[in-house]
């Protein structure tokens, strides 16, 4: 390993912000009370729980009562989808997209064995959906539309505003997995009338093990975890106070610097992308570059393989990820890139770099230098390279 890690895999997880860690620590030491207790020792913790709920709500311009703390983004997605289906028991049709995160995709797939019919909307070569296809697929039996806000692999942002309008005009509930979007782009629950929205703490510099489900006021919820009366009876289990407080802090920071994502981080991403495309032998970007998260670039290096690239990057202290089959446990290449019709020659050599506010200009220089050297090296080994 080299002496310094260049972390460019922030869509996988992020560093816990030092301010977040500092906020958490007292709750791992003296402030260990249970917010449900009747004594002041627990009561003071309840105050911090409420405060954190306000901070999370503020980030997406929601009401604090609409914020439900969960253990992770996947739990939030599962709660939302199952709850919507349970509260609309007569409808058996789900509309989602072909590029969802497994938290939604695999859940919907598993529901087909319970008599549900799932329509996965296709995407074009830029990874973008067609709203007409959404309109055409809505019918009287449609119980739910679940559509991610931004894609984890390509960073492509879906036209959620328009999609919600279409879906809500038919009176159908709308859930969005916004795990990659919250904290990176502005989301406003007052402006966009989605019914449920999932957030994951560790994607925005809070720790792993904390998530949020936004539930619009007036929307019924069938609890996923049944037990005590925590979270107004909507999610049982003693609250994970340290991480909830940490997530509150992370959301507060995100709200204050969200513009920075659009300037500082985007500038770095654009430089990284431009230099790699210009200097690499054969590289191309995957995804709709006009509607994309500011921190993500997904680049395919033709005829060289992603896992090999990652191993060599890793040996140089650089962390990134790939859509190659060999990096997944299932041996299947990225379902997102395949749905976009990216040829196999490029899917297997796809590398995602996802940045955060902790990346620097120097990081980009290092990534470009090392990546180009790795490309050259693997091309020398590849049978597709001319002798």
């Amino acid at each position, binding site marked *: 390993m080299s002496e310094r890690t260049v972390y460019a895999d922030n869509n996988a997880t992020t560093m816990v912000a030092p301010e977040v860690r500092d906020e958490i620590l007292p709750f791992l030491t003296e402030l260990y009370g249970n917010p449900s207790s009747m004594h002041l020792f627990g009561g003071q913790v309840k105050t911090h729980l409420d405060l954190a709920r306000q901070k999370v709500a503020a980030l997406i311009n929601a009401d604090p009562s609409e914020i439900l703390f969960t253990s992770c983004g996947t739990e939030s997605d599962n709660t939302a989808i199952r709850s919507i289906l349970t509260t609309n028991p007569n409808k058996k049709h789900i509309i989602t997209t072909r590029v969802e995160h497994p938290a939604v995709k695999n859940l919907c797939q598993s529901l087909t064995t319970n008599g549900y019919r799932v329509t996965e909307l296709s995407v074009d070569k830029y990874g973008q959906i067609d709203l007409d296809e959404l309109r055409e697929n809505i019918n009287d039996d449609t119980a739910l539309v679940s559509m991610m806000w931004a894609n984890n692999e390509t960073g492509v942002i879906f036209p959620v505003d328009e999609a919600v309008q279409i879906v809500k005009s038919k009176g159908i509930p709308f859930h969005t997995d916004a795990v990659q979007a919250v904290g990176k782009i502005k989301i406003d629950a007052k402006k966009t009338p989605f019914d449920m929205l999932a957030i994951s703490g560790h994607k925005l510099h809070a720790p792993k093990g904390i998530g949020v489900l936004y539930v619009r006021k007036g929307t019924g919820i069938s609890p996923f975890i049944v037990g005590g009366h925590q979270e107004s009876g909507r999610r049982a289990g003693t609250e994970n106070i340290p991480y909830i407080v940490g997530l509150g802090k992370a959301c507060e920071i995100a709200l204050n610097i969200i513009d920075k994502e659009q300037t500082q981080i985007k500038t770095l991403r654009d430089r990284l992308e431009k230099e790699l495309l210009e200097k690499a032998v054969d590289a191309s970007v995957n995804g709709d570059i006009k509607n994309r998260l500011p921190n993500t670039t997904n680049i395919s290096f033709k005829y060289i393989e992603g896992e*090999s690239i990652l191993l060599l990057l890793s040996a140089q202290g650089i962390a990134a990820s790939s859509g190659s089959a060999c990096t997944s446990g299932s041996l299947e290449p990225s379902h997102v890139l395949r749905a976009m019709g990216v040829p196999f020659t490029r899917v297997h050599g796809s590398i995602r770099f996802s940045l955060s506010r902790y990346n620097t200009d120097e990081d980009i220089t290092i990534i470009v230098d090392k990546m180009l050297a790795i490309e050259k090296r693997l091309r020398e080994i590849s049978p597709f390279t001319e002798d």
Partner: protein
Amino acid sequence: MWDYTDKVKDHFFNPRNVGKIKNPDGIGEEGSLACGDSLTLTFKLGEDKKIKEAKFQTFGCGSAIASASALTEIIIGKTLKEAEKITNNDIADYLGGLPDEKMHCSVMGREALEAAIANCRGEDVNELRDRHKNVVCQCFGVTDVEIVKTIKENQLKTVQDVTNYTKAGGGCKACHAKIEELITGTMGVQDESEAPKKTSSRMTNIQKIKLIEEVIEREIRPALKADGGDIDLIDLDGNKVIVALRGMCSSCPSSSYTLKEYVEAKLKEFVSEDMVVEEDKL
């Protein structure tokens, strides 16, 4: 992250015998684009009829590169008779083992060796390939012969084992029933020969892919672009060329005409008579 042995890491970071021997005595190519791995093995025999020099080129993951590198070290100094006895397990053992999910990398090595030896003996490599034509796993293009051979050599008992060793069944899972059948059948049935089917072109997959890309670039793409369209090669499965039409072409009502009458015609003219073009349905 995969749990690779130090030996695998060593062969990945410092691959031995990289390259392609000019005028080799034996050449073998294995793998496919869909799988994301591909291996070209070349060797030269010495005066003593032993393999004197061996080189490889690999498009693939860390363990694919390591397996190919190990293979070259294993076969150097061996006679063809000795070399043909090498199994994928020998390659994996040489590397101190491979993760189960990566055993198919060693299988690819064994298959390339098999092809290279056949080539060296003047046997028709395409005939060998044709014996492998009965594709069970469409996702990864794995044939029954490969699966049966791997089941035997490694005493595989479950579909998951077969997936780990050959990749077969790792995609859509539609072939799981067929793999089950092969596992049950393999214990009793010893006959693995299939009636050879019509031999197609003499080109290997890699040569074909390169040529198809050239023809698309030179003969096809400019014409489509003139109409605001484009085309991408998605994959090659035997002689079936899978392409995606882009831009104006993708919504053009006469796109199927374009595919058959133009793209396929060009590929038949410049690549091989038996090329069949299909549009990527995914």
